[in-house]
C-alpha cells in the first residue's frame, strides 16, 4: 500500500492542532494515518451512483429552540474550574504585548 499521508503532511496537521511531534512520531503517525485512510477507502468500491449525499445519519431537520433568555451559571461557578483567573475574567498568558 502506498503511504497516503507523508511525514510532511503530518507535521502540517500537527502544527494546525498546536501539537509538537518528534521525528519518530511523525513517521509512526504517517503510517497509522495512511492505514486508516486505506481502510476507509474500501468504501469507494461501492457504487453510489444515484445516491443522494447525506450530511448526517438522522433524517431530521429544523430542531430549534425559542429565543428565550435564561441565566445559567453564576460567574463564580463558571470560573470554578479555571486554572487561573483575574477578578471575574479567565486569565490566560498574554495574547498581545
Amino acid at each position, binding site marked *: 500500500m502506498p503511504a497516503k499521508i507523508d511525514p510532511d503532511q503530518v507535521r*502540517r496537521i500537527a502544527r*494546525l492542532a*498546536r501539537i509538537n511531534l518528534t521525528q519518530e512520531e511523525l513517521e509512526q503517525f504517517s503510517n497509522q494515518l495512511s492505514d486508516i485512510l486505506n481502510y476507509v477507502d474500501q468504501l469507494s468500491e461501492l457504487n453510489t451512483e444515484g445516491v443522494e449525499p447525506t*450530511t*448526517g445519519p*438522522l433524517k*431530521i*431537520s*429544523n*430542531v*430549534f*429552540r*425559542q*429565543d*428565550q*433568555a*435564561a*441565566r*445559567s*451559571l*453564576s*460567574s463564580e461557578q*463558571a*470560573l470554578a474550574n479555571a486554572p*487561573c483567573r*483575574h*477578578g*471575574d*475574567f*479567565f*486569565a*490566560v*498568558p*498574554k*495574547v*498581545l504585548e
Partner: protein
Amino acid sequence: MGYRPTIGLEIHVELSTASKMFCGCPNHFGDPPNSNVCPVCLGMPGVLPTMNRQAYEYAVLMGLALNCRIATFTKWDRKGYYYPDLPKNYQISQYDLPLSSNGYIDLLVNGQTKRIGITRAHLEEDAGKNVHDLPGCTGVDLNRAGVPLLEIVSEPDMNSVPEVMAYARSMRQLVRYLNISQANMQQGHMRFEPNISLWVFDDAEPDGGHYTPIVEVKNLNSFRSLERTVAFEIDRQAGQWQADPDGYRMDKMSKQNRGWDDVREVTVYQRHKEEADEYRYFPEPDLLPVEIDDAWLGRIKAQLPELPIARYARFRKEFGLDEKLTTLLTSERGTADYFEAVVQAGASPHRAANLIQSQGLRLANERGTDVAGLGISAERLAGLCKLADEDKVSATTAAGIFQAMLESDDPPEKIAQDRNLMQVSDTSALEAIVAEVLSENGKAVADYKSGGKKAKKARSFILGQVMQRSKGQANPKVAGELIDRKVLGQT
C-alpha cells in the same frame, strides 16, 4: 498608466436576539464578565448546542433584503479556531452551504445608483472578548461567546472610498430598518474587514492590466477607521506600485494581512498568507440541518418592510422633497414612519418635513432618543403643522410651539393661544393698527406713495411698525396687503 481601486468588504453584524445562537444565555452587552455563560458556550464536554429560531429568521430576512438566493437546505460546519475567546477550539459557522448567496444591494453615491454584489451571507457564533490591559495576563470574558453573528461578504465591486462608506452605512441602515440588530458601533455590533487591491492599467492597451497584491485588514469597528484604512491602503499600494511596477503584482506576491494602527493612522504589516487559510472545516455533528419551505419563507418575507432606497425614491416622488431632507427623513425607519404618520394626519409634507428636521431631530438628538420618542404624537404635530399651513402661526412661532409641546400635553392651538402666539390674519383687527401706524408716520407714507428710491425702504419701515405694535402676531402677508391698499389704493 492609471489605477482603479478594487475593494470588497466583509461585515460582521451581531443580531439583537434575546438569547445566544446555540444556548439560552442572555445576549446582552455590558454585564459583569462571565455572567452570561453556561456549559454550552463555555465549551464544556458533553453539551449539545440548539439553534435559535429567531436568529435564523433574522438572517433569512437580511438575505431577502439583499436580494439573495435563500438556500432551501443548509447545514452547520466547524471551523478550527485556536484562541482563548472561543473555548471549544472551533467556531460553528456555515461553510459550503450558506443560508443565502448571490444577492446585491443598490447604493446612492453622489446621486448615482451603484449596485454592489453580495457573494454570501451566513450565520455563525461570535467569539468572547479578550481584555489586554490586565497586569501580566490577558483576561477573557465569554459573555459574547456564542452571540449570533451574521457575516456578509460582498463582491469586490467598490472602486472608491465614498463607495465603501456608502456600502457600510447602507448595511447599518438596512439592519436597523429590519430591526435585526441595533448596529451600535460603540458596542461592537458591526465590524468591517476590507480587501483592497488596485487594478493597474495602461490606457494604450485597453485589454492589459494587472492587480496589486490583495491586502486584508481585520476587525475595524468604526466608520472612521474603515474610511481611513481604505484611503491609506489605496495611497500606500499606489506608492508601492510606482516604486516597483514589475514586482508589486498579485501574481508575484501573496496576499497580505495588515492591521490598522489608530494612533499613527497607518496600516501595519502582520503576515503573508503563503497558502489558503487552513481552518479544517468539517460538518458539525451536533446540529441538524435546516430546511426551509415556501410557507416558512413566505412568513419571513411578509415581515420585510419597505427598504430604505425604495422609501427614499417614493418620498422624493410622492412628497416632492429635496435630496437632503429625504435622506434625513429616511435615514432611520422610525423617523420615516413618524413623518408619514404626521402627513397622514393632515399636515403638508413640506411643513412636517421642515419641522421634523429643524426641531424634531435636533431635540431628539439632545435628549438621546428618536423623533417618535419625544412623546409628541403624530396627530398633535400634524395639528401644529396645520396651524402654520393656515397662517395662524408663523414659521418661527411654530418652532417655539414644537418645543413647548415637549412640556405640555395641551393641543398646539391652546398653547399658541395661552402664550399669545396666534397670528392675526383677521383684517378688521389689523386695520386699526395699520391706520394708527399710517397716521403717525406721515413722512414714510409720503415716501412710499412717491414710488421713488425710498419707497421700498419706507414700506418695510411701515410694516415693521405694524408688526411691532401687534407684538409680532400680525400675519406679515395680510398686514402688507392692508398697507398697500390703504396707501396706494390697490386691492
